[in-house]
């Protein structure tokens, strides 16, 4: 594949243009060609992405002036110390992880049947209608969707109004509202990977299972479910990490602080602490991704 073209005698042409000669030269030096193509995106990844992470990491070891809140470049481990000694950071971390887990679990429960129906049951026509229906919410801005949940859940809002005939009322603002809003927002990110994963399971496998006497439930439990686990895990990476980092939804539909809120407020008031704290979700995600890799999620993406 990558062997360089042998130096053939150039065809007798009067004078090949510079462009043509350059192209020919690049053709012979395939490594350089690859390097040139990848240089820009790699530089972007290196500088903008990894670079900012490094800056963030460095900030975590600095301190601030108690009066002006400006960053003072003096080495300290205080920020990390605080994260462990002050209970509020622990509480917020646990709360956020629990919320992310809950949202992910709910998304799986809701998404699986929809994805299964789309992949294995629906006619091609219904399937495309459903695919559009799932994708449609992604066309609207995240903020608009979050704000509309604020209206839905608000006291005397749509939900209260709809439940009133049954003598019930909505959950109002609070943790339940955060959970509902997140579940709504991230659901498509769960449906799509599961749908893709289920679609890849050959129908012949299901037929083979039936031939061997496997009833519907057995086939699902022993064939479909194990084969779709990587897809579910892939979807959960989205729902889990998106919940872990979000700070806008909790601010809109509750007064509760999540990791993102604490980081956001401290970016203004204590940048080093915010930097140190932002390493926490990073670490959580790293562990999550390692586990996900073992479960084969990356083959499913």
């Amino acid at each position, binding site marked *: 594949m990558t062997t360089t073209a042998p130096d053939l005698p150039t065809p007798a042409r009067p004078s090949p243009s510079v462009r043509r000669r350059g192209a020919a030269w690049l053709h012979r030096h395939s490594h350089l060609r690859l390097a040139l193509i990848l240089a820009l995106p790699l530089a972007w990844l290196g500088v903008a992405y990894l670079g900012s992470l490094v800056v963030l990491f460095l900030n975590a070891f600095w301190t601030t002036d*108690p009066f002006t809140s400006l960053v003072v470049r003096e080495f300290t481990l205080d920020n990390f110390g605080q994260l462990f000694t002050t209970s509020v950071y622990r509480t*917020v971390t646990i709360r956020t992880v629990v919320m992310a887990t809950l949202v992910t679990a709910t998304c799986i429960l809701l998404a699986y049947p929809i994805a299964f129906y789309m992949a294995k049951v629906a006619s091609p026509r219904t399937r495309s209608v459903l695919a559009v229906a799932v994708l449609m919410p992604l066309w609207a801005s995240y903020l608009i969707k979050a704000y509309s949940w604020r209206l839905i859940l608000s006291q005397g809002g749509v939900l209260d109004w709809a439940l009133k005939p049954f003598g019930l009322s909505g959950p109002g*603002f609070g943790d339940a509202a955060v959970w509902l809003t997140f579940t709504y927002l991230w659901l498509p990110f769960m449906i799509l990977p599961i749908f893709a994963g289920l679609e890849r399971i050959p129908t012949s496998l299901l037929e083979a299972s039936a031939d061997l006497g496997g009833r519907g439930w057995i086939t699902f439990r022993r064939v479909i479910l194990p084969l779709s686990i990587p897809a579910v895990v892939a979807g959960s990476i989205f729902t889990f990490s998106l919940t872990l980092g979000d700070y806008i939804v909790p601010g809109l539909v509750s007064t509760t*602080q999540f990791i993102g809120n604490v980081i956001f*407020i401290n970016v203004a008031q204590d940048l080093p602490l915010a930097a140190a704290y932002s390493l926490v979700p990073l670490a959580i995600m790293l562990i999550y991704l390692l586990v996900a890799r073992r479960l084969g999620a990356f083959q499913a993406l």
Partner: protein
Amino acid sequence: MRMRGVMALAASAAIVVGACSNNGASTAPSSTAAASAAATAAGSAAASTAASAGPSLPTELGSTQGQTINVLAWPGYVENGSTDKTVDWVTDFQKQTGCTVNAQIFGTSDEAYTLFSTSPEQFDVISASGDASLRLVRGGFVQPVNLDLFKSYPDIFPALKNKPYNTVDGVAYGVPHGRGSNLLMWRTDQVTPAPTTWAQMFDPANGYKVSIYDAPIYIADAAVVLMKTKPELNIKNPYALDDTQFAAAVALLNQQKPAVTQRWVDYLKQMDDFRAGNANVGTTWQIITNLLQGETPPAKVDVIKPTEGATGWSDTWMINSKTKNLACAYAYIDYLTSPEINAKIAEWFGEAPGNSKSCALTAAKDHCDIFHADDDAFWQDVWYWQTPTAECVDGRTDVKCKGFDDWIKAWTEIKG
């Protein structure tokens, strides 16, 4: 060899970039050259303040034509007609001076300070309350001003001049704009009898749905309550809290927490929650109540200054130490603090004007009486926002007070 080549490339790139930015600065239109020269002079003056006895202040500002200033302001301070067609103190100014005014609003002093300090060249002018102004001065972000260049300054109320939050070591850093008190708003149809004290808002037994201001400085509101309810704590100034006093304030806020249904920074969000009834009692600004009452149908809200006194603000217009648009910065501050415009802003925002001549020019003739613009006794129990420091701001030297970094951390913990 290869490494050296890369470094040479980087170096030449740096030279090119440097040359370009030099070029950009020197090709400013000639009409603004004088102003930018003045700005540079002022900038270097600010830098050398510590060394010399007094800073050399700008004496000439040059032409305002063609300058664009970015103003970082509290909501309602810079209105260009987009909120309400009749509320506009940008358009005429732009016509008169040839300046262009862009405004960005903020919700807390901390937000303002962060915006201003993290992009030090972005904003030319800022409306700073006392809990931002000193930080801006100490950080070197704002420049000393030549008060003689403001036509409005002689008319500013003497009670606002030469205060610790606008003047440092005898050097003025801006022009006072106006002052006001944080107020208690409630839904008249949901809360009876009407609340009269902050203490009621801190007691969950009252069953209120409470909306509070989401900033560390709100701890001072609890301290104001404690000054009346727990005199044994001996709090003399809500921004000077020693360990015991601070712990009591934090405890009071924790006690209030079950009743808190909303914390606001964005005033639109507070309006939203009062309209919907997600909150029915809360700490607010007069302008928020005015806007709610002005809706059709009017929201059923009313507002008072509770009996304990209140926290409040006394704001100062300040100029960026790095501004290149000094002429327009001076001109706009002068315009905003002039009798007529200052009256308009004071009425729109619902605060006491800074200019004494504004009182004769307000649309409501009793505006200055209602807001006690010239009634110094009224302001005795209004505690203007200021940044708490380890050296107690009430002058005590026998104890250490909690500095603002402690307030910030405590606020995160209170929110839990």
